[in-house]
């Protein structure tokens, strides 16, 4: 059985192809203009890289904010459910997943079968989201994928007092103008993102072992700070954390076929 999970987020489109329980291929693509057309081409590429054609697919499940833009999907599944399923499948002992995506932060509590028990989501405010980090790193002239190597050069943390992304951006610019070093500001920024995420996770007590998915999970500056401040143990997501929801969508597709 071959299942494809496609997660259309606000900034990136992700896909995971499962052949049985095996990840046959995956892909990540930035979404820009004509999303519907982009997705179609992207799906074809992910299929082609595993030598699979559309007719070979047993099922396609979509998720994410743009789930309805995916052609040929059997159904769309909430991304919270997908993240829970992927977490319990890859990390059976971990009940809490923190998903930090482009435009949302969600904390999901699941049972051992991967069913959602409870969750919290903030998609109203950019604070702490992937978009927030993009704006800040652009203001500092550091590409998002080079945040960690830059933070490693820091000697102190310049604390960021604004929570609002718009105000934080001005604050960062004034720190630069005052002569603070970019690595030190970035270190402070990672701290501030972690604090915003932690304040949501703490609503679940902070004692549960957890994993982190979504693009921001790739940034050790943020996950290290979370690990320092949360009592539950941090279990790094075993595959690229950006693929979490897409992986879960494919798993849910497989389950659907079994039933």
């Amino acid at each position, binding site marked *: 059985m071959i299942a494809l999970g496609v997660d259309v987020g*606000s900034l990136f489109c992700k896909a995971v192809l499962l052949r049985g329980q095996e990840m046959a291929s995956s892909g990540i693509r930035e979404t820009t*203009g004509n999303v519907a057309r982009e997705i179609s081409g992207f799906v074809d590429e992910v299929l082609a890289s595993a030598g699979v054609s559309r007719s070979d697919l047993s099922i396609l499940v979509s998720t994410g904010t743009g789930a309805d833009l995916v052609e040929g999907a059997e159904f769309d599944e909430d991304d919270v459910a997908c993240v829970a399923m992927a977490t319990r499948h890859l990390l059976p002992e971990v009940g809490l997943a923190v998903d930090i995506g482009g*435009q949302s932060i969600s904390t999901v509590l699941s049972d051992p079968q991967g069913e959602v028990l409870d969750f919290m989501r903030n998609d*109203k*405010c*950019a604070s702490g989201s992937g*978009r*927030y980090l993009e*704006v800040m790193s652009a203001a500092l002239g550091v590409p998002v994928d080079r945040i960690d190597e830059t933070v490693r050069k820091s000697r102190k943390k310049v604390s960021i007092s*604004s*929570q*609002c*992304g*718009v*105000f934080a951006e001005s604050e960062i610019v004034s720190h630069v*103008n005052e002569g603070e070093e970019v690595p030190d500001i970035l270190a402070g920024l990672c701290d501030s993102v972690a604090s915003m995420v932690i304040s949501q996770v703490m609503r679940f007590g902070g004692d549960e072992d957890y994993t982190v998915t979504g693009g921001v999970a790739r940034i050790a500056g943020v996950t290290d700070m979370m690990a320092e401040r949360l009592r539950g143990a941090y279990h790094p997501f075993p595959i690229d954390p950006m693929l979490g929801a897409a992986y879960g969508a494919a798993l849910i597709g497989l389950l659907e076929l079994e039933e």
Partner: protein
Amino acid sequence: MLFGGIDVGSLTAQAVIIQNGSIVASSSIKVKPNPLDSARTVLFTVLEQSGLEKGDLDFTVSTGYGREQVQKEGLSQANVSEISAHGKGAHWLLPSVRTVIDIGGQDAKVIRVSDTGDLDDFVMNDKCAAGTGRFLEVMARTLGVGLEELGPLSFQARNPIELSTRCSIYCETEVLHYLQRGAEKADIAASVNRTMAERVMALVRRVGVGKEVTMTGGVAKNVAVRKELERLLGMRMVEYSVDSQIVGALGAALVAREMGGGR
């Protein structure tokens, strides 16, 4: 006797001089990186305008960013919060107004004033850019229009779009998507101004609406936001003859008059 008021905001700074119960001079400048420089520059601009020297002022009060530093530096003899200053200024201009909506470049305040111009209650948002002048600034920049064009542009809208979020950063992304899809700037501007008014109204509801309402600060100059706000309030807001951005400095000058023992 001559009394001075200095108000340093996030984007602009103002100074006002009053004498015998009327405004003799006022000035507004763009802020300098340092609030002290802004205060000094705007004070000397207004003095020069009126052919006066600093020593001619009997008492001066500062308000806004760095109002304490401004006093320490000797540019003023006392300082007052922006909230009190706006309440005083608005009450002096319009004695029957009980609710003052002051939207500045970086914060939003709704102030309830008593019949004597004193502060009854207030709410303030300086944590989130939504509902402040910064939101409009970000949106104008994203649309590629001047801040002052944003209001009038609204009135050319034929099919206003609907912004799905309040967050300035998410709105920016959403507006970019609309522009890429060929949406009209006017249709987007209308939605931006409406979203702005809705955020302000949420703040107004928290202190309640008095029998007469007026608006101060830079955003009061945006005609579309005013109109949307009036629709939400279900009443017209009271207008006045001076620049909406000098009301804080005017209020500071009025406090200077009280403290300086003048009339």
